[in-house]
């Protein structure tokens, strides 16, 4: 058996956690550059092996649930989603919950979401006037909580939603930092804030579930799907579990999508020529289809290649992890049970074998043949179940937005950088852009 090289710079007790917490993106790039396809590091006791390159990533994605556990690697999510939900549920219940969650996002339900998202954008820009300047990171955090709640929890909830709900979500998300993956229960202000937010969200959502259980109105949104979904034995989810699924679904899509939208708009402002091409494409589509239908959104080659490149350069999730349950072997290296294996999406998207001149933003790239190089939504059987919704949402937002306004950067182009304080990448706030109404 070959020995797995260890990344340099480990401290006696804490290993690499300090460097990792300060800048995990750079740390992972350094680990691969220094050690190659397998690189071992230590996060305050959790020995982790970074698997790099397409073969190693395919091995990661094709690993069986029996050997590679997501639940064990993602215990940091348990206090966010709640007890008995997803990574805290027994394996068969977890599978059922994920199935019920994806059911809400299947095509037949998603068709209703495009006009809802377009309407949210119209309401958002209604008082913009002819020109102005905004911090779009802040704006998109608001917009995507509106679209997510409207699509998933229905219009009545969206209409009644208060500023409190948004604050609670931000508090919940702020608790997801590298340190949470070491121990999500240690005494820390960000974790106390997270737990208070989770408790209050449960009150709000449970009240809504109770209201619906006592009402004759028929709903056809995600909450209705969660409330009627059943386990293999025919039993329904408890209110805590339904609440957990609601929180998990919004959580999965909020920070990620708002970051992607903000990067999308920033890159459009940085690349006016490509932006003009996308507007041309939109005008041609809208001539035939005045209202934004799901069908109209399906084919937008220019918008799609631009969005794909945004997700390549700025993948919202940097790192994916699994806990090794049974000893495994890769390329002559033994990986014993108890260790964690990880892959870096950010690193994979900078693999020059598949993406020549990887730092260059180039929407004309073609997607690699292999499914394991370009992986903004992960891959294999645990690929993000919200991927279709996420792409639909971006296309709906920018179809509505770009036809009305054009955008320019305000600060120096190089000053728009990733915020590395959380585990989900997004532009650092303030992300100032200037908008101008288009003259038609």
């Amino acid at each position: 058996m070959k020995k797995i090289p260890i990344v340099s710079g480990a401290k006696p007790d804490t290993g690499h956690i300090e460097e990792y917490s300060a800048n995990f993106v750079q740390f992972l790039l350094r680990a691969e550059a220094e050690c190659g396809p397998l690189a071992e590091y230590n996060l305050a006791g959790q020995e982790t092996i970074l698997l790099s390159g397409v073969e190693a990533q395919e091995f990661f994605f094709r690993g069986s649930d029996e050997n590679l556990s997501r639940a064990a690697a993602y215990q940091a999510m348990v206090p966010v989603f709640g007890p008995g939900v997803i990574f805290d549920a027994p394996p068969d219940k977890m599978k059922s919950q994920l199935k019920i969650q994806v059911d809400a996002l299947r095509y037949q339900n998603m068709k209703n979401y495009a006009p809802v998202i377009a309407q949210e954008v119209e309401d958002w820009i209604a008082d913009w006037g002819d020109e102005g300047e905004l911090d779009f990171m802040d704006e998109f955090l608001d917009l995507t909580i509106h679209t997510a709640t409207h699509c998933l929890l229905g219009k009545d909830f969206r209409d009644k939603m208060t500023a409190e709900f948004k604050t609670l979500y931000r508090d919940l998300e702020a608790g997801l930092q590298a340190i949470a993956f070491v121990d999500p229960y240690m005494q820390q202000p960000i974790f106390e804030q997270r737990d208070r937010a989770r408790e209050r969200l449960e009150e709000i959502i449970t009240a809504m579930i109770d209201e619906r259980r006592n009402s004759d109105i028929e709903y056809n949104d995600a909450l209705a799907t969660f409330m009627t979904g059943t386990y293999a034995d025919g039993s329904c989810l408890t209110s805590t579990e339904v609440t957990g699924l609601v929180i998990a679904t919004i959580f999965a899509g909020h920070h990620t999508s708002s970051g992607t939208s903000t990067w999308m708009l920033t890159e459009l402002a940085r690349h006016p020529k490509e932006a003009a091409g996308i507007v041309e494409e939109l005008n041609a589509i809208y001539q035939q289809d005045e209202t934004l239908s799901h069908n109209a959104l399906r084919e937008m080659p220019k918008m799609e290649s631009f969005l794909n490149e945004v997700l390549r350069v700025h993948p919202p999730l940097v790192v994916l992890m699994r806990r090794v349950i049974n000893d495994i072997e890769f390329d002559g290296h033994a990986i014993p049970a108890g260790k964690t294996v990880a892959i870096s999406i950010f690193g994979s998207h900078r693999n020059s074998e598949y993406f020549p001149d990887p730092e260059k933003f180039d929407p004309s790239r073609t997607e690699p043949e292999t499914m394991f190089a370009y992986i903004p939504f992960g891959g294999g059987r645990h690929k993000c179940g919200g991927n279709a919704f996420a792409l639909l949402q971006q296309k709906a937002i920018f179809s509505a937005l770009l036809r009305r306004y054009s955008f320019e950067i305000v600060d120096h182009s190089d000053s728009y950088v990733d915020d590395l304080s959380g585990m989900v990448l997004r532009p650092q706030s303030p992300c100032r852009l200037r908008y101008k109404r288009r003259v038609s």
Partner: protein
Amino acid sequence: MKIRVDLDLCQGHSVCIEEAPEVFSVEDQADDYPKVKVLNFHPSAELQGQVRLAARYCPNKVITVIEDNE
């Protein structure tokens, strides 16, 4: 035309049954995502356009179409 599906990747998003209901169905599984079932692995000429769209719009790239000349 031949059709190949990778069931490991299927999460039951059900785009295919919207595009080509004569060729695909999606079936519930006990404790896993619903999975696509191919009803007709050699679709007739008039259905092939719909099958190509089903493959193209599948969010998880579950469906591969092998054309006769390939």
